[in-house]
């Protein structure tokens, strides 16, 4: 079954790159959301295999979206991988403790993105 990815990021270009990278190269089905709220709605309706969640977003930011996803029984079990530009080891650990499946740093290598995510999901 094709992996369905949900990318939640306010940057259009980033979503495009992810679409190209995961969709074309990674042969995944990619759905896009431009905000936390839209992401929540899509997560419920699309039941993605995993969610790629940007940390810094205006309005409902990454953490708020994460909590909301976790709080909702319909979406609570979907693995979430954070996308972030800040990479302090302590922050990464904190996120993992909170229940994130993994953390990916921006900018990522579009050619290896799919493998990296698969490795994270398999762990």
């Amino acid at each position: 079954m094709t992996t369905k990815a949900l990318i939640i990021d306010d940057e259009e270009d980033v979503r495009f790159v992810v679409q190209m990278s995961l969709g074309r190269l990674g042969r995944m089905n990619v759905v896009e959301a431009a905000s936390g709220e839209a992401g929540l709605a899509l997560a419920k309706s699309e039941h993605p295999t995993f969610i790629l969640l940007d940390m810094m977003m205006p309005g409902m930011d990454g953490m708020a979206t994460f909590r909301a996803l976790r709080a909702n029984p319909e979406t609570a079990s979907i693995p979430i991988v954070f996308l972030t530009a800040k990479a302090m080891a302590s922050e990464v650990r904190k996120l993992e403790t909170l229940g994130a499946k993994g953390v990916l740093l921006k900018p990522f290598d579009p050619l290896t993105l799919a493998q990296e995510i698969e490795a994270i999901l398999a762990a």
Partner: protein
Amino acid sequence: MISAALPANEPARLAALASYSVLGTSPEASFDDLARLASVICETPIALVSLVDETRQWFKSHIGLDATETPRPVSFCSHAILEGGLFTVEDALRDERFADNPLVVGDPHMRFYAGAVLTSPEGMNLGTLCVIDHRPRVLGDEQTVALSALARQVVVQLELRRQIAERTAAEERLRESQARLQRVFDGSNDGFWDWDLTTGQVEYSPSFAAMLGYTLDELAPRISTMEALVHPDDRIRVRNELASQLEGQTDQYSSEHRMRRRDGEWLWLLARGKVVERDASGLPLRMAGTHSDISTRRRAERELDRFFDLSIDLLCIAGMDGTYRRLNPAFETVLGYSTAELIARPFIDFVHPDDRAKTIAELEALRRGRKTIRFENRYICRNGAIKYFAWTASPAPEEGTVYAAARDITDAKLVEETRLEVDRLKRDFVSTVSHELRTPLTSIRGSLGLLASGVAGELTPTAQQMVAVAERNSVRLIHLINDILDFEKLESGRVEMDLRPTPLQRVLERSIEAISAFAEQEGVRIELQRSAATVIADETRLGQVMVNLLSNAVKFSDRGGVVQIRARPVRNQVEVCVADRGRGIAAAKLHKIFERFHQADSGDSRVHSGTGLGLAICKAIIEQHGGTIDVESREGEGSTFRFRVTGAREVA
């Protein structure tokens, strides 16, 4: 024989007798004359001035008798003093009291005795003026009167004698007292003056003159002498101060003023004195006083006063009750309040409300005797501005005061606060840049990477080249940004190092793995000497250092070259060497190699971290590990980079 009983007032009587200091003294003409007169008038061979002491009767005068005393029990006079007046025994042999008295039966064979008692003005019976005969007699009326009169005269003589003795003793005491006083004055170098206000005469002591450089005879013993010597500027004040004492307004005359020395110099003196004699209406008759040289003290005070006034720091004396007693001018200058305003209120009123509690606590500690060192608080100036002070204070419990000095540290605080603000801004900037720059770079790098991969369709060779160029440079940009941010964090110490015992071998192997593709590409071999050492390190960061050093080593090696990694223990550290036999580094550039943005070889972009920050970052990381890093190199021969970090006992 019957001995006389003791008079009722015997102790007082004996004391009165003693007060004449006459017992045991030599005969004197005045007493002998009176006795002789008694003997002539009464026609007796013997006349005595007899004083009855505790155990004897002692004769001040003894006419016609060789003895100077006889025991009291056998004395006739002891009977006489019991009654006073005239005591007569006409025939001792017929008187049962005296019939067998040794003085009657034997020498001097007394038969007749008549004694007129010597009664002191206070009524004490001291003894008698008595006349004695060897045959029984009776005195005529006129003889009786005369004897009594003569006895009174004896008392007069005794009184005179006593007064003279007392006066002499008093004079002696006075002389001794004056001598002692003079010794004190001489010892203290103070001058003494004694002013007779009725005549204007003043007696000056030699020390008074000496203090001013004169000899005593150079100073006229008049009050005008002293007045003329006073400094013109002080004259009016001195006159007023003297007048206050003369008129009785002050308890003591005390005046600090200048007097001219013989050599023309001015001498600061403390003059003190008191009116010692006034007439009935209270007018002063005599005044005496001293002069002390206070020039040293005044000089010291002046010197200290000058510093007190000059000081930029705030200097003050405050009471334990929380009010200022004395302030230096700096208070006015810095706070803008006048000294009067500052003294009028408890000083806590001027302290910033938020700092009042701790200031009160500090004052409490001072009260208990603890010194204050570097206590900081804020004051509010008259114009509302806030100033920071650093206080040092010392309590003087015996005076009930606190001595304190404060430095205005507002500027320093401002600098500190600005620095903190700047740091915060920098941190925020780093944070912002971190996100802001990386986001568009994600898109750039992503798109270029995808393009290059052919996912959007096949590219012409030229297009491929262009995309490759663009991608390469966007990656380089990313690395540069990473390095800058990384270095900034390292340098400001904000990177958390997760230092823990780490097997060195693992770090080395992983770093080799990381650059293996690059090394292979360059045709350079990596040689690792196995290490069993354990180091205290942040594995990721140490790995970063190794990757950096290895990348450089590979970059600078020729094709077919070898890079060697060796580790060895050095005392409590572990030393790791990365050695290459490549180009080497010019001696001139060697000492700068760990500096920021230094490029040993500019324009060479083979290495993925050609940012010039690589070694600076390595140094920062190693130093955060508490270690050291350095390099040896010879141009054309190669370089060895060496770092040391703390070692640990091996982890099992």
